C-alpha cells in the first residue's frame, strides 16, 4: 500500500514546493486570481449605461414633440443634452462624440399627428461605436414611442365616436408586462463577471501549469511517471479548490454580483471543472519547451475561449465547426454551468448536461495526459 502511495505523495509535495518557490507562478496562481476579479468589478462597477447624451433637432417645434421629448428625457438611459436648429449642427456634435445619438422631428410632425389619417415620423440616429449606446437610446425611445402611439390611437378612435374601452381593446387587445428573470437589476457587469471569473480560473491554471512544465524542462527536472502526473494534478487541485471556492462562492456575495445559486452545487461543480482544466493543461504542457514559449498563444487563447464559448455571442449563432472545438475546452461547459447555477438559480441536476460534459472531459484528458506522459517517459529513457 505505502509502496504505491509514496511516490505520489512525494510528487505532490515537490510540486507544491515548486509552485511556492516560483514567484512567477505564485503571482499567476494567487495574486492574479484574486486581483483580476476586483479589477473587473471596478471596471463594470456602474453596471448600467445611464445618461447617454443625445442631441435634439426639433423642426416641428410643437407641443407634441416637446411632450415626447419630456417623457423620453425621464428615462434614466439617456439625457437630452443639446438642442440643435439643424441636422448639420447635430451631426457635428455626433462626430465630435459629444453626443451618441440624435433625435429628429420633421417639420410636419404635429400636422401628421393631427391628421386622423396621417402617419408621423421620428428619425433616430445611433452611434454604433459601442452597441450599448444603441441599446440605451433605441430601446428607451421605442418604449416612449409605443406609449405615445397608443394614446394617439385612442384619441383618434374616440374622435370617431368609438367607446374608450373598446378603443383600448382595439389598440392593444392584450397588454403585456415584461420581466427580467433571475437578475432583474443586472447590467453588463452582472452578465460578464461570472463568465470572467470562470475564465480567470481556467486561464491562470492553464498558464501556471504550462509555466511549471516549461521551467521543469528548462531545469531538466521533469518527470513523466504516472505518480508524478497524479501528484502534480493533486497539488494544483488542492491550491485551486480553495481559490475557486473563494472566487465563485464568496466573491459574488461580497461584491453584489448575481448569486442566487446554491453554494453546495457550486462547490460540486468546481470539482470536475478544475480536474478537466488540470488534465487539459497537463496535456498541453507536455509540448511546452521552455517557460516563455507560446506565452502569446496562451494569452490570446483567453479571448478565443471566451467568444467561442457562446456567452458574449450567443452559441446558436456560432458555426458548428467552432462549436465542436469549443466543446473540447473545459471553459465552455464550466462557464455555462456556472451561469446557470449562480446567475439563474438552476440546480446541478438542471444543468446536468454541462456537468456530465465536464466529467467526460476530465476522463478524456486524464487518459490523454497519461498516454502523453508515458510516451514522453519512454522517449526520455532512450537518451
Amino acid at each position, binding site marked *: 500500500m505505502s509502496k504505491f502511495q509514496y511516490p505520489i505523495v512525494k510528487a505532490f509535495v515537490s510540486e507544491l514546493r515548486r509552485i511556492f518557490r516560483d514567484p512567477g507562478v505564485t503571482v499567476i496562481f494567487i495574486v492574479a486570481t484574486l486581483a483580476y476579479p476586483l479589477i473587473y468589478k471596478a471596471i463594470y462597477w456602474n453596471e448600467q449605461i445611464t445618461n447617454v447624451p443625445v442631441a435634439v433637432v426639433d423642426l416641428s417645434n410643437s407641443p407634441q414633440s416637446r411632450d415626447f421629448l419630456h417623457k423620453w428625457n425621464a428615462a434614466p438611459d439617456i439625457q437630452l443634452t443639446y438642442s440643435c436648429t439643424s441636422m448639420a449642427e447635430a451631426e457635428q456634435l455626433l462626430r465630435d462624440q459629444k453626443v451618441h445619438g440624435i433625435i429628429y422631428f420633421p417639420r410636419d410632425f404635429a400636422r401628421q399627428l393631427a391628421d386622423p389619417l396621417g402617419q408621423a*415620423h421620428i428619425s433616430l440616429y445611433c452611434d454604433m461605436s459601442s452597441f450599448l449606446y444603441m441599446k440605451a437610446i433605441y430601446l428607451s425611445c421605442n418604449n416612449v414611442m409605443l406609449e405615445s402611439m397608443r394614446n394617439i390611437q385612442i384619441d383618434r378612435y374616440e374622435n370617431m365616436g368609438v367607446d374608450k374601452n373598446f378603443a383600448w381593446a382595439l389598440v392593444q387587445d392584450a397588454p403585456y408586462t*415584461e420581466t427580467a428573470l433571475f437578475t432583474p437589476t443586472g447590467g453588463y457587469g452582472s452578465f460578464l463577471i461570472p463568465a470572467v471569473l470562470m475564465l480567470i480560473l481556467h486561464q491562470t491554471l492553464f498558464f501556471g501549469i504550462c509555466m511549471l512544465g516549461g521551467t521543469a524542462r528548462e531545469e531538466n527536472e521533469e518527470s513523466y511517471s504516472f505518480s508524478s502526473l497524479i501528484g502534480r494534478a493533486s497539488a494544483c487541485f488542492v491550491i485551486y479548490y480553495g481559490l475557486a471556492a473563494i472566487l465563485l462562492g464568496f466573491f459574488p456575495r461580497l461584491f453584489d454580483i448575481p448569486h442566487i445559486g446554491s453554494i453546495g452545487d457550486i462547490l460540486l461543480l468546481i470539482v470536475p471543472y478544475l480536474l478537466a482544466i488540470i488534465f487539459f493543461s497537463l496535456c498541453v504542457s507536455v509540448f511546452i519547451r521552455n517557460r516563455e514559449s507560446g506565452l502569446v498563444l496562451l494569452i490570446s487563447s483567453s479571448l478565443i475561449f471566451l467568444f467561442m464559448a457562446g456567452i458574449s455571442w450567443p452559441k446558436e449563432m456560432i458555426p458548428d465547426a467552432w462549436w465542436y472545438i469549443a466543446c473540447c475546452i473545459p471553459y465552455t461547459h464550466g462557464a455555462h454551468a456556472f451561469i446557470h447555477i449562480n446567475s439563474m438559480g438552476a440546480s446541478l441536476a438542471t444543468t446536468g448536461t454541462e456537468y456530465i460534459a465536464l466529467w467526460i472531459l476530465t476522463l478524456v484528458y486524464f487518459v490523454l495526459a497519461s498516454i502523453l506522459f508515458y510516451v514522453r517517459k519512454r522517449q526520455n529513457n532512450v537518451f
Partner: protein
Amino acid sequence: MLIIFKNIYRVLVRELHMMFARPLYLFASVGVMLLSTFFFLTLMKGGTAENMPVAVVDLDQTSISRRLIHEMQATPSVDIQLITNSYPEARKAMQQGKIYGIFVIPEGFYSDLVAFKRPQMDFYVTNSYTVGGNTAYKQMLTMVNLTSGAFQREVLRKKGLTDDVIMHRIQPLAIEGHMVANPWGNYSVYLVSTILPGILGLICLMLTIFAIGFELKSRTSHAWLRAAGGNYTVAMIGKLIPYTVMYLILGVGCHLILYRFAGFPVYGSTSRLMFGLMLFIFAMEALGITLIGLLPTLRDALSIGALYSMLGFSLSGFTYPQMSMLAPVKALSYIEPLRHYYLIYVNEALMAAPIENSIPHMLALTAFMVASLCVAPRLHRALVYWNYPLK
C-alpha cells in the same frame, strides 16, 4: 556617421540570426494573428444575432391561443423552440440555456379577449446572456405588437377600410432608426475592428519584452551591446527593426483583410486609420521597452505585460463605454494604448471626423514612445551590469 549605420546593420543581422534560431516564438506570434483573424471573421454567422430560441407557455389552451402561437411562429426572426402548458418547464429550459425568453398566454385569455377585457400577457427574458437576451426581448416586443396590430387590422377591415389607411391607423407614429456607420447593426464589424488590432498590439508588447528580456535572461546582452559598438540607441534600433517590419506587415495585412476583403466600412480616411494603427504598434513596442526597463526580469515583465494588455480590451471602452466607468478607472483607461487606437478608429472609420479629433490620441500614442526613453538609463545599466534578480 557611417559607423553607426554599420553597427545598426550588424545588430540587425545578429537579431535575424536569433529570430530564426528560435522560430517557435516568432511563428507562434504570426500564427496567433492569422488564427485570430480567421477565428473572429468566421465566428459570427452574418454578424447579426437573430432567431434566438424562445418558449411559449400556453395556459389558455383554446383555439385562439393556438392561433396566436401560429401567428407568432409565422413572424420572421422568431424561433419558438418550446410550446408548453407548464411555466416551470419553460423556466427550466431557460436555466439550461436552451431559450432566452418566455412568453406566457394567461388562462382565460380567449374569454377575456372576446369580452374586450384585455387579458394580460407576460414575457420574461434573461439578463444572464446579454446578446441572446436582448435579441429575444426585441423579437418578443415585435411579436406582441404585430399580433396586437393584427387584431386591429381585422376589425378595421371588416369596417371596409383599405390596407393603406389601416396601416396609418395602426401605426400613427413610427421611428426610423439609423445606425450611423454600421447600418446593418453588424456585431462582427463592431467587435473585430478593435479586437484584432488589440491582439496585434498584445503580440507587439509581448514579443518586444521577450526580444530584450531574453538577452537579459540568457546573459547575452554584452554581445548585443558589443555588436552595437557599445551604443544603447544603436543596439535598440538594430534589434527592433526586424520586429517592427514584421508588425507593420501584419498590421497592413490585417487592414487589407478587414477593410478590403471583408468589406468593413471606412467612412473617413483609410490612410489616417492606417497611420493610427502604425502609431499604436509603435506605442505597444515602446510600452514593452518601458516594462522590461522597469522590471528587467523576463518572466515578471511578461506576466505584467500580459495582465496589462488583457485589461486594454475592457478599458478601451468599446464594449462597455468609458463614460459609464468610475473616475479612477476612467483615468486608468488613458494609459492603455488600445483606448487611443479605438478612438482614432471611431473618428476615422465611423465618424469621418476631421483630423483635429484624432490628433490628441495620436499625440497620446506618441507619449508612450517618449515614456520608453525615460527608462533608457535603467535598461542600459541592466544590460551592462546585470543588476536584477535572474530568476
